[in-house]
């Protein structure tokens, strides 16, 4: 397990000015990826991480330094370094969204997979990192299905979209009205578009701003005077203007609902001060949510996600343990291979200095090989069944397989 290392420059350890200089990909590391070495690089807006095996940590740092132009000292101060089991644990946590800015977000898994595809295309990963990454995908899937960590939206925009989905089902069939051209409204509109909204109208007091946002989102700009008509037509309304007074009143909604023939409408009012008179929400089939209501729900969801983190960490611990077993079984196999190579060496040296006829030689060699194989079989079986580090070390020490094994494994 100690063969793996990770350098992570993330939102906790470094400001965006440093992170943006470190937008690397696996091809950038091909030059330091010698035979038996593996490297995997992940770069997102919140983190740049490099995982390696079979390479010196210093070489990776120097390469990162050369790629980013960030001085080594600054780079060291801006990164977190994980080694061995900690690196695997970190990889699994990243893939599961536990290390993300918004705990439990699921975009990161797609990014980890994309980076893996790039690494495969560049040929920088092999047995060890391939296995580690597949285990990371599996862990992320378990975390997602066995815990509620990613189940509830934790942004006001996502919660608004979720509520709309609960009322209308397929958002693609519903018309959306965005009132105001502010950032919050546009984020909500983007979320709605991601969920399939096609018919998007944008109304703003400054018509040019509505036109700009409409252009950006692929919607239709409408004059402010068309507000009533659009309210009567659209089923999902997101309003976020800077108006000091409500722009949608109870009387207006009464009239609108009549024109809509009481078809349900959801109004998400994310403006402060509010754009919609709270009384308007009392109209039949009108679902009104203001920013406070949505924030309260989102806060509840965030708390819930945090509570689920412990469960997710348990899953990660068990998966790291499983991966550790696999790594140890690799070590055990290598030791077994070395033992049998030693046996061949021993037989060759014994058979080299005697005066037997070829037939006698073959018979003795066969007998010797069978006896030694029987003897080694016990050791091999034991190592296969109990591939722990002390057992492997013990076996290598007894048979004097190599001197540097312990040094390698103590990192």
């Amino acid at each position: 397990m100690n063969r793996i290392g990770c350098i992570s420059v993330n939102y906790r350890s470094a400001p965006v000015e440093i992170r943006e200089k470190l937008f690397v990909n696996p091809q950038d590391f091909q030059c330091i990826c010698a035979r038996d070495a593996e490297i995997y690089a992940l770069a997102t807006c919140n983190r740049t991480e490099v995982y390696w095996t079979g390479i010196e940590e210093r070489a990776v740092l120097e390469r990162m330094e050369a790629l980013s132009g960030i001085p080594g000292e600054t780079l060291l101060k801006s990164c977190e370094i994980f080694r061995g089991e900690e690196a695997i644990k970190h990889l699994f946590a990243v893939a599961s969204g536990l290390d993300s800015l918004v705990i439990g977000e699921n975009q990161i898994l797609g990014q980890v997979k994309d980076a893996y595809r790039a690494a495969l295309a560049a040929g920088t990963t092999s047995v060890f990192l391939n296995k580690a990454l597949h285990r990371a995908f599996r862990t992320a899937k378990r975390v997602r299905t066995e815990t509620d960590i990613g189940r509830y939206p934790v942004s006001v925009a996502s919660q608004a979209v979720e509520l709309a989905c609960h009322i209308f089902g397929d958002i693609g069939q519903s018309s959306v009205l965005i009132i105001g051209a502010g950032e919050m409204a546009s984020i909500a509109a983007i979320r709605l578009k991601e969920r399939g909204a096609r018919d998007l109208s944008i109304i703003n007091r400054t018509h040019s701003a509505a036109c700009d946002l409409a252009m950006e989102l692929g919607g239709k700009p409408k004059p402010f005077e068309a507000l009533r008509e659009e309210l009567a037509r659209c089923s999902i309304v997101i309003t976020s203007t800077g108006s000091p007074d409500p722009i949608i009143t109870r009387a207006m909604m009464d009239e609108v609902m009549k024109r809509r023939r009481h078809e349900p409408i959801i109004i998400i009012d994310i403006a402060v001060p509010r754009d919609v008179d709270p009384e308007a929400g009392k109209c039949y089939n009108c679902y009104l949510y203001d920013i406070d209501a949505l924030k309260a729900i989102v806060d509840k969801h965030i708390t819930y996600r945090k509570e689920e983190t412990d469960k997710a960490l348990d899953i990660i611990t068990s998966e790291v343990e499983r991966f550790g077993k696999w790594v140890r079984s690799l070590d055990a196999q290598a030791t077994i291979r070395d033992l049998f190579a030693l046996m061949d060496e021993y037989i060759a040296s014994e058979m080299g200095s005697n005066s037997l006829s070829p037939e006698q030689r073959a018979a003795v060699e066969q007998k010797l090989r069978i006896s030694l194989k029987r003897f080694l079989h016990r050791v091999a079986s034991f190592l296969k069944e109990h591939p722990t580090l002390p057992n492997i070390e013990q076996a290598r020490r007894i048979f004097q397989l190599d001197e540097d094994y312990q040094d390698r494994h103590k990192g």
Partner: protein
Amino acid sequence: MIIRIAILFYILTGIGFIMYLFWRDSRIVLVSRGLFLASIALHVIHTLFLGGQMNHVPLASPAQATNMIVLLASLVFVPFIFRKQTAVLGAFFLPVAGFSLGMIGPHLDESGGMAPALSQTWYPLHTVSVIAGEALFAVAFVVSVVYLIHERIIRKGYLHWTASGLPPLKLLDRILSVCLGAGFVSITAGMIFGALWASSLGVELSHIGAKISAGAAMWMVFAFSIHQRFAIRWSGGRTAVITIAGFVFMVLLFIGMNMAYPESHGIGLTG
């Protein structure tokens, strides 16, 4: 024996769908769907067998009428159960179906007040239409309950995992609207067939007045609901509330009428 196994299967299916509501595991829904089909198959076999024994549609007692309502409502539920978005409706319908069948199961073989002589052309048409309408209202009732629960959750805004499996309000409203419309047409046709049947037997109005009044009252409740739904566009919550009230009224009438006039369908002969 067959009906006992069917009841057991209905209950198991209900438990399965309740589990699915909470755990949303595809294996649970797969098993539950299988059990549901088996329940319906057994239920149909038993009803056909009963009809064969009686030599006419097995609707000669309140127990048999309830049995038929449950069977038809279950058949209406088949497409819902096999649609991913509406499968959880089974968690609300099947326990009620299982419980109703459990209550009437032991009395299914008892023939009520109807004499075989009454089995004329209009009688099966009358009963089957009315029962089909009532079955559709039963489905509308279940959908209304789910609608109100889901609407309440949405109004609060906290969409718990269990709630996230409930069908969207718009879909529930569409199902409700179809069930109410079809149920109303069926009940209306049933009432017309009933009048034709009574007149073909020369029954005096005084003998079946109570039954006609009760039927007319129930018809009025649903007519009001339909009118508000289609003319004034009371979609959603209000329709759901009226449907629930109408269904409860229908059940009370059904029980009340059968207790007060146990042989009301036999009056034609004796009168």
